[in-house]
C-alpha cells in the first residue's frame, strides 16, 4: 500500500534582497504530525516535489511546547506557532510563510529583536535596589496576581503585531504585546511607582495612540492574553498621566 502523503508549500527566500520562490514538498503522512515535523522531514530529504534538490528550510524553533515563542510563522494565512499547528487540523496543501511585519533573515526566519528593543524603551521591569537580601516583596492580593499572571504569560511571539492593521511601513505601532507588558508593570506595587516613564514612552510616535481598535491581536494570541483590555486600560493610564502632568507638572 502506498503511503498517504500531503503537500507543503513553503515561501522561501535566501535573503531579504533575493527573489522569492515557492517550493512544494510531498511528505509522508503520520498521525499527530505538526509543522515542525514537516520542516524536519524536509531537512532530512530536501528534495522538492518535482525532484530537484533544495536546502533545509531555515526557521526558528526552540521549546516546541508553545511557551518560548520562537516558532511563529504564517500557516495557511494565519500567524501562529508552528509547534501547535497540527497537520490533521490544517487544510492541504499547507502553506508556510514567514511573518511579514519583521525583517526577513531567511526562509521562515525573521528578526523580532525590535520587540525586545521596545520592551527596553518602555522600561518593562521592576527597578529593584539590588539582589542582596531585602526581605519579601510587597504583598499582593490574589485577584491582582491573577490579572498579572495572565499578562505575564506573553511569549513575545509577535503574532499580535503580524495581524495588526496598524503595523506596516506607514505606521510603527509597538503592538499590543508591549502595551500589555506596560500594563503588567504598572499594576505591580513597586512597578506602579515608576509608571510615568513607561506611559510617556507610549505617548510618542508608534505609541498607544496608533491602536485603532481593530482588536485582531486578541484573536491570534496563543496565550489568550486579554490584549484589548490591556490596550484600553493603558489608554486610560496614559490619558490620566498626560492630563495630570499638564496641569500639575511632572
Amino acid at each position, binding site marked *: 500500500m502506498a503511503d498517504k502523503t500531503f503537500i507543503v508549500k513553503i515561501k522561501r527566500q535566501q535573503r531579504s534582497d533575493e527573489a522569492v520562490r515557492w517550493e512544494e514538498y510531498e511528505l509522508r503522512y503520520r498521525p499527530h504530525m505538526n509543522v515542525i515535523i514537516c520542516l524536519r522531514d524536509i531537512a532530512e530529504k530536501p528534495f522538492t516535489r518535482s525532484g530537484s534538490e533544495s536546502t533545509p528550510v531555515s526557521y526558528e524553533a526552540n521549546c516546541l511546547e508553545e511557551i518560548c515563542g520562537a516558532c511563529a510563522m504564517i500557516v495557511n*494565512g*494565519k500567524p501562529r506557532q508552528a509547534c501547535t499547528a497540527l497537520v490533521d487540523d490544517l487544510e492541504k496543501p499547507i502553506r508556510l510563510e514567514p511573518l511579514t511585519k519583521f525583517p526577513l533573515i531567511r526562509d521562515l526566519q525573521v528578526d523580532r529583536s*525590535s*520587540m525586545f*528593543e*521596545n520592551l527596553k*524603551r*518602555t522600561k518593562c521591569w521592576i527597578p529593584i535596589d539590588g539582589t542582596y537580601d531585602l526581605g519579601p516583596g510587597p504583598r499582593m492580593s490574589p485577584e491582582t496576581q491573577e490579572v498579572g499572571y495572565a499578562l505575564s504569560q506573553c511569549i513575545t511571539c509577535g503574532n499580535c503585531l503580524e*495581524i495588526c*492593521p*496598524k*503595523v*506596516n511601513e*506607514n*505606521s*510603527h*505601532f*509597538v*503592538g499590543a504585546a*508591549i502595551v500589555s507588558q506596560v500594563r503588567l508593570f504598572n499594576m505591580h506595587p513597586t512597578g506602579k511607582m515608576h509608571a510615568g516613564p513607561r506611559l*510617556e*514612552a*507610549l*505617548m*510618542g*510616535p*508608534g*505609541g*498607544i*495612540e*496608533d*491602536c*485603532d*481598535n*481593530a*482588536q*485582531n491581536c486578541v*484573536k491570534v494570541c496563543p496565550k489568550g492574553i*486579554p490584549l*484589548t*483590555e490591556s*490596550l*484600553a*486600560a*493603558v*489608554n*486610560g*493610564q*496614559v*490619558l*490620566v498621566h*498626560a492630563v495630570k502632568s499638564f496641569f500639575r507638572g511632572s
Partner: protein
Amino acid sequence: MSVAAADSKTSYLLDKLQSLSGVVPIGAFLAEHFWSNSYALVSVGKYNDVSRELQQIPWRIMIETCVLFIPILFHGLYGCYIWWTGKSNAIGHPWMANWLYVLQRWTGIIAFVFIGWHLYTERFMGHGVTSYADVQRNLMNPWYLTFYIVGITCASFHLGNGLWNFACKWGIAVSVSAQRAAGWFGAAVAVAFTFIGVAIVIALHYGAFPLGGYVQ
C-alpha cells in the same frame, strides 16, 4: 517601531484631539443638526422658522468656523492621515471588530467627502440662507437623494462606531464586557442616526410630513 524615537508628544495630542473632535463638537453637532432638520418631518413653516432662527444666531460665522469648519477639516484631514497609516486585512481575517475597523476607515472618507459637498451646496452656494423649498428642490434629484442616503448612513455609522472606539481608546470601557456594552451603545447610535437622517431626506424628497399630524 520606534517608541519615543522622537520624544515629542505632538502626535499623541493630535491623535487625542482627532478622536475627541469626532465626538465633541462634530458628533454633538450632528445630533443637533438631525434634531433641527427633523422639523422637516413636521411642517414647512416650522422647518423654516427653526432654520431662520439658526441662521440668525449671533457670532454665527465665528461659531461656525470654530465649532464646525475647523473641527471637521481637522478631523477629516488628520483622519485621512490615520487612514493612510493603516492596512486593512479583513478579507483574510474576517473578524467582526476587524470589519468594523475597515468600515470605520472607509465610512470616514465617504462621510468627509459628503460633508464637504453638503456644506458647499447647502451652506456656501446659498450664502448661508436656505429654506425648505431650496432643500427640497435639491433632493428631488435622485442622485442627490442617493448621495444623501449614503452620506448620512456613513456619517451615522462612523459616529456610532467611533463612540465605541472612543470608549476603548480613552480607557472608559476596559473590561471585555464593558467594551461589548459600549459596542451595543455605538450600534444603537448608528442605527438611530441612520434612521432619523434617512427619514428626513426621504420626507423632503416626497414633501411628506409624517410627524405633522399633531402640530396644529
